[in-house]
């Protein structure tokens, strides 16, 4: 372990043994936390201790640990991913916390994201929304030359900004309404800004919204809490793009 301050933290963590088991906030003391650790490494240290004492370690989702996969998902002191601009929980470092601080750690809270265990939620609802229309239909055959299709820089940039979404669900977790609009909008905006995706833009907006509604997410009230917590800093501008696409296609279908 490299140099750096060592701290002790008072954790309050949501523990729930299974989808239908009752859950509760449980207190732990995290000792020997190095300030250079990431938030997940801090939990690894806590889990190491728990294992030694025979207690079940705290379950949490993680994969890449470099802010690109969207697996890590925890609400830290009331803010999904902890509230540092453009940062996922796995990229959040303990130096942002004070020695002796209380830290509340909870799972994403939404009817559409049921808890599987502790901090792990089932986010398959997002997969079903993608399956309902978050794709581009292409015919098989000889692959066209990638550069044969000119795309204006402005469109490419807008598509790319929206494509940055890693589907973590922080937008849902932060929203007072537990709305999935920023996620759905990012996908719709991303695909509708490319010539290949434009073709199905209207149908896509309608089928994805129908699936979003069926999954039980809330409606959008433009609080912009989603934008504030998005680790990829996706703007609520994409929600306006989606609304426009949706209204247009509902009226013209």
């Amino acid at each position, binding site marked *: 372990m490299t140099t750096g301050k060592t701290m002790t933290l008072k954790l309050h963590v949501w523990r729930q043994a299974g989808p239908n088991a009752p859950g509760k906030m449980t207190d732990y003391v995290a000792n020997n936390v190095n300030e250079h650790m990431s938030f997940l490494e801090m939990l690894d240290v806590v889990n190491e201790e728990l294992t030694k004492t025979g207690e079940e370690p705290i379950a949490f989702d993680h994969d890449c640990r470099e802010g690109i996969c969207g697996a890590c998902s925890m609400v830290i002191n*009331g803010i999904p991913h902890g509230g540092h601009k453009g940062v996922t929980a796995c990229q959040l470092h303990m130096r942002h916390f004070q020695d002796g601080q209380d830290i509340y750690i909870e799972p994403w809270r939404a009817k559409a994201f049921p808890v599987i265990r502790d901090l792990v939620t089932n986010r398959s609802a997002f997969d079903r929304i993608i399956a309902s229309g978050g794709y581009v239909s292409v015919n098989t055959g000889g692959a066209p030359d990638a550069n044969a299709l000119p795309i204006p820089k402005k469109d490419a940039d807008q598509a790319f900004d929206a494509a940055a979404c890693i589907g973590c669900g922080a937008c849902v977790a932060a929203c007072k309404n537990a709305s999935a609009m920023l996620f759905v909008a990012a996908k719709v905006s991303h695909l509708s800004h490319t010539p290949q995706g434009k073709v199905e833009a209207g149908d896509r907006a309608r089928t994805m919204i129908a699936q979003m509604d069926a999954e039980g997410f*809330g409606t959008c009230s433009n609080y912009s809490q989603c934008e504030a917590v998005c680790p990829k800093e996706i703007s609520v*501008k994409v929600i306006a793009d989606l609304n426009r696409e*949706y209204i247009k296609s509902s009226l013209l279908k």
Partner: protein
Amino acid sequence: MSSNASDARPVQDTTPLLMQTWQLMNTSIGAKVVMAVTGVGIWFWFLTHMAGNLMIYAGPEVMNSYAAKLHATPALLWVARIALLIAFPLHIGSAIRTNLHAKAARPVAYAYENRSQANPGSKTMLISGLLVATFILYHLAHFTWHWFGADNVRTITIDGLQGIDTYRMVVLGFQQPVIALIYIAAQILLAQHLVHGLYSMCQHVGLWGASWTPAVKRAAYVLAYGVAAGFISIPLSVMFGLVKLP
């Protein structure tokens, strides 16, 4: 080539237009479009109403003659009333419905209060809206139906038309500080509802621009509080004796 992925999607829809509108209203985005469109309508009435009210500064003759002419044009009055009778229930109904939806979408609350940033006015739209609706009913009972304050209502003839002395009714009404304060409080509440409402309705119908959306947010404050200030100036002027009976 026949199994194209897009085959799963609705290709052609022959549902009648009215049915389609109803279906749209029942989706999450559609309900908000309804709120935005009815909101614009209510805004329009709100501005007209304030312009009419400001005639109080021109004195009893101008004010009363405007009121008498308005009442002598029932077509105009009833078009506005019917529009409002459609807009308000749709606006409030969609608000309640979408709020219930939102509550159901988060059955388990956070132990640590959600701290992600949002304009406090935006999170209290339902409360501010319902309080304003209550105020509107009170206001109608007061100045339209004369359920109370009836002794302040006097019938007059102006420009050959029978009418009530609106000027006198308003001045005597606002000379009672409690009533004046209720009006002032309601306007402040409404202004903060409209600040979020104005920005929100642009967003709900898909109007967004990197260069002008921030300006819309600022303009919302100016417009909402500006119109509220216009309304509020009337009870204040009466309270401080700037507007009084001739």
